[in-house]
Structure formats: structure tokens, C-alpha cells
């Protein structure tokens, strides 16, 4: 099984360690992992801001670069959701059938649904609050959305539970938006920061030492608020916890 590693632009620049952890996990599981160097960005930042036309060529680029792989796997639920939900429509405008969107996975759903990982080495003896990101929950269905009357589940918590010693928590208003929202964060900074502060308070109230999640973008936003306000909480991506024993 050949895996194309999709490292979204900001993970590449700000959180390379999340990319490394993702690689480690996939490699540990015996998969053939490659990182095509020509990749850049999925186009979500422009599209959510209202400039989908500027994302079309990037979607083409993406489809071309990852076409050769059996699966495309990335550590960012929101970017994966964009590829899955929007790339086919973008490419349709160019008369191009999208070949990669249906085989593109967030690392958590890939480990949970495709590889069906049921054990991982390592201990993580810490209190961790799980951040259920909007696109992870409501687009990729990494966990059951709080609005819906469906049986509760959480793929992220299932995976994290494989680590010995970990104590998992979830904040009040379990999947309320943290206020990042891409360009929203700078167009509506007051509301965005206010949402971030509220979200952080709810995470901190669980008594956790760490906030973890499948979306580094939410973590980046909350980290920015926490740092400004000197709040006592650390941030770590799910893959970093899962790979901590490798």
C-alpha cells in the first residue's frame, strides 16, 4: 500500500514535528510512505475567504501530485475535509474528474477505519483534553456531533485510549467552534478571540495539562490566545501523542 503524505502548508512551516509524527506512525505500521515534494496547499484559505477561483489550479496540482498513491494521508482534518468536500466541485469547473478526493484521509480516520490500529506502544501518563474541531466533527465525522441524535462515538478518543496511562477529558460545549475559521480569524478578530478565550477556559476547566486535536489550525489559534494571556496549558497534536512511544 503506497501512501502519499499530505502535509498542509502551515503544518509544513509551523508544526513540522506533526508531520514527522505522522510519518513515524505510518512507517511503524509497515506502510510504504512517500512525501511528494511538489505539494504546497489544498486551497482552503482562499476558498473559505470567497476566492475559490484561486484554488482551482491548486486542486489540479494536488490531484496530479497524489494520483499515483493508493491513499493520501494528512494530519489536518480541516484540509482533508476541503479536499474531500470541495476539490471534486472545483475540478468539475475545469471539466476534470477528481481522482484523489475519495482516497484522501485524515490520519486519525485512516488509522481508525482503514488500518484499524488496535494497539500502539508507549505511555502518555497525562491529563489530556480533546479538542473536537468543527470540520473534523461535522465534515469528516471523526466524532458524533453534539447536535445530532445519533449513537456517540469518537475515533480520536478511541485512538488516544490505546496509550497507556492517558486520562482523557472533553470540554463543556464539547464541539463548539474555537473561533479560528481561516480568514474569519482576521476579518472578525474580536469574535474570533472571544471564542478562543471561551474555548480555552472550557478546556482548562477539565483540569487537563494538554489540549490535543486532529486539527493543528485550531490548536495554533488557541495557542496564540493562551500565549497572549499566559494561560497554563500545553498543546499537542494527536499524532504526537500516538507516536510518543515510537
Amino acid at each position: 500500500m503506497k501512501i502519499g503524505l499530505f502535509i498542509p502548508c502551515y503544518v509544513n512551516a509551523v508544526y513540522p514535528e506533526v508531520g514527522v509524527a505522522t510519518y513515524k506512525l505510518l512507517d511503524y505500521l509497515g506502510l510504504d510512505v512517500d512525501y511528494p515534494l511538489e505539494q504546497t496547499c489544498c486551497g482552503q484559505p482562499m476558498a473559505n475567504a470567497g476566492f475559490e477561483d484561486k484554488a482551482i489550479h491548486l486542486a489540479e496540482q494536488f490531484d496530479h501530485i497524489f494520483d499515483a498513491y493508493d491513499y493520501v494521508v494528512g494530519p489536518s482534518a480541516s484540509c482533508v475535509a476541503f479536499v474531500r468536500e470541495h476539490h471534486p466541485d472545483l475540478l468539475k469547473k475545469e471539466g476534470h474528474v477528481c481522482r484523489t478526493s475519495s482516497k484522501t484521509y485524515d490520519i486519525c480516520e485512516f488509522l481508525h477505519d482503514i488500518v484499524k490500529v488496535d494497539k500502539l506502544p508507549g505511555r502518555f501518563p497525562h491529563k489530556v483534553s480533546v479538542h473536537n474541531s468543527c470540520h473534523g466533527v461535522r465534515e469528516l465525522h471523526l466524532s458524533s456531533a453534539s447536535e445530532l441524535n445519533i449513537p456517540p462515538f469518537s475515533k480520536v478518543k478511541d485512538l488516544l485510549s490505546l496509550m497507556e496511562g492517558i486520562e482523557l477529558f472533553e470540554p463543556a460545549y464539547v464541539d463548539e467552534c474555537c473561533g479560528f475559521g481561516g480568514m474569519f480569524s482576521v476579518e472578525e478578530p474580536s469574535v474570533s478571540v472571544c471564542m478562543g478565550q471561551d474555548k480555552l477556559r472550557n478546556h482548562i476547566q477539565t483540569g487537563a495539562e494538554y489540549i490535543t486535536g486532529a486539527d493543528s489550525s485550531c490548536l495554533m489559534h488557541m495557542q496564540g490566545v493562551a500565549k497572549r494571556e499566559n494561560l497554563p496549558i500545553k498543546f499537542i497534536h494527536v499524532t504526537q501523542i500516538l507516536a510518543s512511544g515510537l
Partner: protein
Amino acid sequence: MSTKHTKAADLFIENKEQQVWHNKTLHFVRDKRDKMAMQLPEWEVLRETAHKIKMHTITHLDHYLDLFSTRAEANGIQVHWAKDAEEHNQIVYEILQSHKVRKLVKSKSMLAEECHLNPYLIDKGINVVESDLGERILQLLNEPPSHIVMPAIHLKRQEVGKLFEEKLHTEKDNSDPTYLTRAARAHLREEFLTADAAMTGANFGVAETGDIVVCTNEGNADMGTALPPLHIVTMGMEKVIPNLQSLSVFIRLLARSATGQPVTAYTSHYRKPREGCEMHLVIVDNGRSEALSNEDHIQTLKCIRCGACMNTCPVYRRSGGYSYTYFIPGPIGINLGMLHAPKEYYDNLSACSLCYSCNNVCPVKIDLADQIYKWRQNLDSFGKADPMKKVMSEGMKFMFERPALFRTGLKMAPIVNHMPRPLIYNGLNDWGKGRELPQFASESFAALWKKGKVSAANQKRSNHEQ
């Protein structure tokens, strides 16, 4: 980079105490809705069914409107058709005039609000009295509603107490809710007894029977229509549904979604005029038939105005109903405003982080967030895109389409980490308001990969294991 919504939200948030209270109050309503929704195992089936019934009805609207109006007429109701707000107001006024009406009691109607009916009638000398408590409070304050179901939700009881003290001469500093409600009731009773006509909106029009169904919690619609000899109903043409069986689906969803009640206190069916009285029904288009032919936005016509999308919206809760420029706020208001007059109401499009919670609470499954996303794509085509956002998007496009340039960018990025603070956190940096910037890594993932450091990380592990 800011819209009218951004600026209004800034002001709302500045009053931290009010913001926190507003957020909590509305979230409490969402919690009540959740509790109700979770008690019905068939909740998601109900939503899906409601969606299908509405889609079916609005795509066969000519048939159902024909049936509905024929039945209503056969029942003795006089039916009028209004193509827009102006025609609606004229029709209502003519009916009132022909009955020499001086005082009209009204129950809550978002359509009347949409048509600006009150100022129109007041201008013509008619005394219009809102009979829904929240609406009456706002009328006394001369303010518009800030929420479609709980129009005065932004007001605290102390503020209402002060207002009543002044207008209804209640006791000084008494803001006990029961006391205030009793005072309002006594005052409204007088208005009910002396009204010449009543007006209601319509939650549903049942095609099969010609019934007009009105849901209220205060019984004010019933009180209003029970006394005077004239009842006018104003109804958007998308409110028609096929039959009583489909009504049962919506009734189960409406109050649960709106306020977390199993059902509203009153669900009134109006089928025909009372003995010796007249009943008129005004069916309004006002842009709805245009929405019907708009594939991307047709789903807004499914809306049953429950307000659940507002209560769940993290932006609405923290910026308040008045931060939006359209009279309906929140996710549905953003969309309805755009359908109504995009060049006038595009400012509200910024009020969305695309969290998709609204899609999930909506009892008729309107794709609210997807539609906001689509509207944003159109802004540029009519010259209303934010220039700064455009430049940023163009810049990103330029860089991301050039992988080598992107990798150079990655290499240069860490320089930002070492730039002097005032240069980064200046007035131009909207991120810097309340947040620190992320630190760029000294080596990007791409650089690590190229140097073989990523696989080396695992090499170490294998060596270690050997």
C-alpha cells in the same frame, strides 16, 4: 479588513458582561433544544422527513398554493396575492380602511417585519399594537427584534422593569418577571378589548384543508382574533404544506427546536371566519419565487423560522442580533439578506466561521453554512470582495502554485520569529489583537524530508530495537 458586522460586533463584545450573559442565555436555549431532541429516538428521521416534505412542497408550489387558496376560499376566507412588500402593505391597509379600523392588534409576524408594515400603517394613522410580550416591549422601546423567536432576548428584566415604570407606570425598581408580565397583561387586555381588527402571521398553511396554523406561547393570537370582527392573516407563500399529516411532523420539530418545549402552549387552526366576521389571507411573494429558481439557495425556502440556527451560532451568541444589517440575524438571516439584496447585506457574510453547527440543528436540514460559503464566492463578481482578502488570496495563489517558491518561503519564514515586536504586532495585524503569532519552525517539514531527517527519525527507532 472589516465589515459592518465586524464593527458592530466589536462594540457588543466591548461590554464583556453583556456579551457573556447573551452567550450563556442563548446557549441555554440550545441546551434545552438538545435535551428535547435527544429524547426522541426518531429525531433524525423527523428532520429528514421534514426536509423531504418541504423540498417536495416548494418544488410543487404552484399546485399546493392553488389547492390551499381554493380550499381557503371555499371555507369563506378572502384570499389576496401580493407580489412584494409594497403591495402587501397596500392590501392590508385597504382592508383596514374598508372596515374603518383605527386600532389593530397584531401577533408576532416576521413577514410583517420584512414588509415594514408597522411604520407604513402607523404613518397612515392606524394604531398598531403588538400583542406578543417581547414584541410589545420592543414596540414601547421603538426597537426592532434581535431574534426571530425571542425578539427581546437581548434585554435583561431590569431594563424591562425600567421601561414599564416609565410607560405602564409600574412600581419603582420592581423587575420581578411575574409582576411585570401581569402588568403587561392588564395593559394588553385593554388593547384587546378595544381593537377593531386582529392580524396574525402563519406558521403553516395546510393545502388539503385550507387551515392556517399559528403557534404561540402566550395565546395572544387567539385573544386578538376572538374579539374584533376582522382577522387578517399575512403569510409567505413558502409556508404552505400538503396536509395535516405533514403538519404533525413540523409541529413535533418546531417548538423543540425553537425553545426546547415539546410543543408551543397554543397551536391554533384557523379554518373559517367567525359568524358574522371577515377573514382575509394575504399570500406574499416578495422575492420568494426568485429564490425558487436559484438552485444554490432554494433551500432557504424550507425555513420554519424556529431560530435554532441563531441559538447555536457561536458568532451570533457573541455579537448579538443587532450586529447584523438584515432584520433577521444569524445563519438564516445572513442567507435571507443575501437573497433579498446582496449588495446591501453582504456585510453579514463575515459573521461565520464555517463551523457547520447550524446545518446540524436545523429541523428542516437547510445547508446554511454551505450557502454562506457559496455567497462568499459571489462577492467578487459584484465588486464587494474585501480588497485586502483578495490581495492575500492572490498572494497565496501565486506562491502555492510555485512549489519551489513555496519552499523558499518556508526557508525564509523563521525570520519573522526574530522581527522586533512592534513591527509584527502593529495596528495592521488583526491576528495580533488578542493572539500571539505562531513561531515558524527553524526547519520546515519539506526541508527535513529533503535532508533525509524524517526517515532518520525512524531509523533511530529501528536501530534501537535491534
